């Protein structure tokens, strides 16, 4: 997994320590602590994982193992408008892959990455429970149903105009 380098501020390290403490620094709470950490930072850079490992007394390798296992966790900052394309069974059979390809083509970034201007990022997810609207795309908290390849540019336009 690619990652970016950064130096955490002392206040950020302190914030992480408090999160770990609120879970009693228990190794079994690793996933919960990572969830909170991702809420705070938007993503989980290596430096954050190192602090979490130290606070919960687990190896950094193990933390990285968990971060890379669950698709919810990301080591790259998400765009201001994170695009999630559902590739669950229902969406998939109704053309989710073509929709996904169209996003990739227009934004020129692969799945899991963010455009250079930091605006959009693309990820896949599995089923949001709206199979009747398949294929489904989410941008931030907003859901779009029955998306077609032609509809992709209209969705993007909405957010380009927003800025």
């Amino acid at each position: 997994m690619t990652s970016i380098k950064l130096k955490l501020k002392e206040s950020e390290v302190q914030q992480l320590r408090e999160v770990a403490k609120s879970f009693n620094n228990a190794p079994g709470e690793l996933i919960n602590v990572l969830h909170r950490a991702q809420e705070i930072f938007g993503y989980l850079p290596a430096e954050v994982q190192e602090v979490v490992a130290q606070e919960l007394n687990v190896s950094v390798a193990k933390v990285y193992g968990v971060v890379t296992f669950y698709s919810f966790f990301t080591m790259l900052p998400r765009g201001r408008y994170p695009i999630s394309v559902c590739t669950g069974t229902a969406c998939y059979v109704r053309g989710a892959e073509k929709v996904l390809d169209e996003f990739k083509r227009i934004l020129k970034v692969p799945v899991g990455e963010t455009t250079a201007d930091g605006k959009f990022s693309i990820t896949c997810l599995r089923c949001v429970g709206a199979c009747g609207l398949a294929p489904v795309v989410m941008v931030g908290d907003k859901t779009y149903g029955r998306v077609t390849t032609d509809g992709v540019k209209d969705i993007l336009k909405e957010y380009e105009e927003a800025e």
Partner: protein
Amino acid sequence: MIKLTIDNRTVEVEKGTTIYHAAKKLDIDIPTLCYMNLGDLKIEHKPGGCRVCVVEVEGRRNLAPACATECFEGMVVQTHSIRVLNARKTVLELILSDHPFDCLICAKSGNCDLQDMAIKMGVRSIPYQGEKSTYKPDFSPAIIRDMDKCIMCRRCETMCNDFQTVGVLSGVNRGFEAVVAPAFERDLDHSECTYCGQCVAVCPTGALTEVDHTTQLIRDLADPAKKMVVQTAPAVRAALGEAFEMEPGSLVTGKMVAALRRLGFDYVFDTDFAADLTIMEEGTELLDRLTRFLDGDKKVKLPMLTSCCPGWVNFFEYHFPDMRDIPSTARSPQQMFGSIAKSYFADQINTKREDMVVVSVMPCVAKKYECTREEFSVNGNPDVDYSISTRELAMLIKRSNMDFNRLPEEDFDQPMGESTGAAVIFGTTGGVIEAAVRSAYEIHTGKTLKKIDFEQLRGIDGIRSASVDFDGIEINIGIAHGLGHARKLLEDIKAGRSDYHAIEIMACPGGCVGGGGQPLHHGNPAIIKARQKAIYREDAGKPIRKSHENPAIIKLYEDFLGKPMSEKAHHLLHTHYFDKKQKDVLLD
């Protein structure tokens, strides 16, 4: 007790027993691949991941992994029904479908659990074609990772995390992308790896192997301009024979010397000589610290920890850097040997150090790293040029057309081949400290030991302690093998809970006899114990059994070093440690 039926035979087992162990009682050998059980060493790994050990349990819909399924009263098990045999073969075919077929040129060929299983199952084709894993290979100074050959048995993770508590390896990513790797998929060289090599020792395939120095050695041996010097570690002689179908625990000291001479070494010496030298330096350091402590010096650092094991040295440099002033400053025997060979001995044979090649044969892979440490070189010329493992030596002997079993027994060359029984036992857990006690007692009290064998220091438990009476003063001794056990002792010291005066630590299970460079034990801990016995046998048979009585060592001090811990001895035989926690591991 629980009664069950396996292959139509009844067996009674204790509650909690797995099908695998119950079957063993009936001499039914259910095949396993990921499973590993190192008995007395208290390491059991049963992830139930590979599914090779599946069996049929009456009334259960799916097949059960025998290694991880507990027996119940009235259980009826079939271990070789047609359904089981087919499933097992399919499982293996699927594993093989994502494995490179380069067995002919693989370092593990002939010694590979996966290959053995394919033979056993009679696999003749791979019906599944598709994508294969491709992962960048990782070349560190000691260990090579080729994850394309990994079958995700995860034995290495158990050794690295549970036994050694080093925590470098973890399963990362998921599905087809899953791989065992260090954090952020860095190279081992950019991780906190101690190079103990226990991952290599248990890897069933060629995914984890040691760096191979045999090609370089063959080239150097063929160069007439080079004076070739070899040293052999104590534990090698107790294991090398296994590579030539001898019983585990066979001692092959004389044959090993003969083989090395025939390979073309000019001087066949013994690391045991340097082990005796280590005792002189480390023992003197211990006595010095003890005397100062007893005189009321509050600044003196006790307990003193041994420093022979390079995996252990790496461990405290990474994990306990703030305690790096506690271990003895004495270099390891390998490095003491190199330092003396390229100074004292180089003068004797009128040879420049640049024209000498000092090679070590070690039961270890961390030794490969140790000889690359900058502080062990002079103007860029290393004291020990490189180290080969017991396995590499066995391979070289085979390649050189020698019938090892029929080689004569020969003696080491002099002066650096002279050694005592105290040096031999460096090869097993408890040995270094016993050797130190033998000499320290006599030097301190001026009396001769009535009994040389300190049985209370021997054994195979992970952490042991004993007291030795130094003429009225009780010396408390701790022993740990396995870095997880070492960690416990270190945490006690840190918390002020420790009343030890001296502690011996070895990274590998059983000490060097169970080292990462030894012939593979394939999960059989009895082999490690047999080697340990052989080491004590070799000690018992030695005419001199105390390091300070080694005549070559006495002469070395008289002619060259002066006395233990002299300025010259400090310069050549002692070292200092680093805080590796601060090393910027992100430099990749």
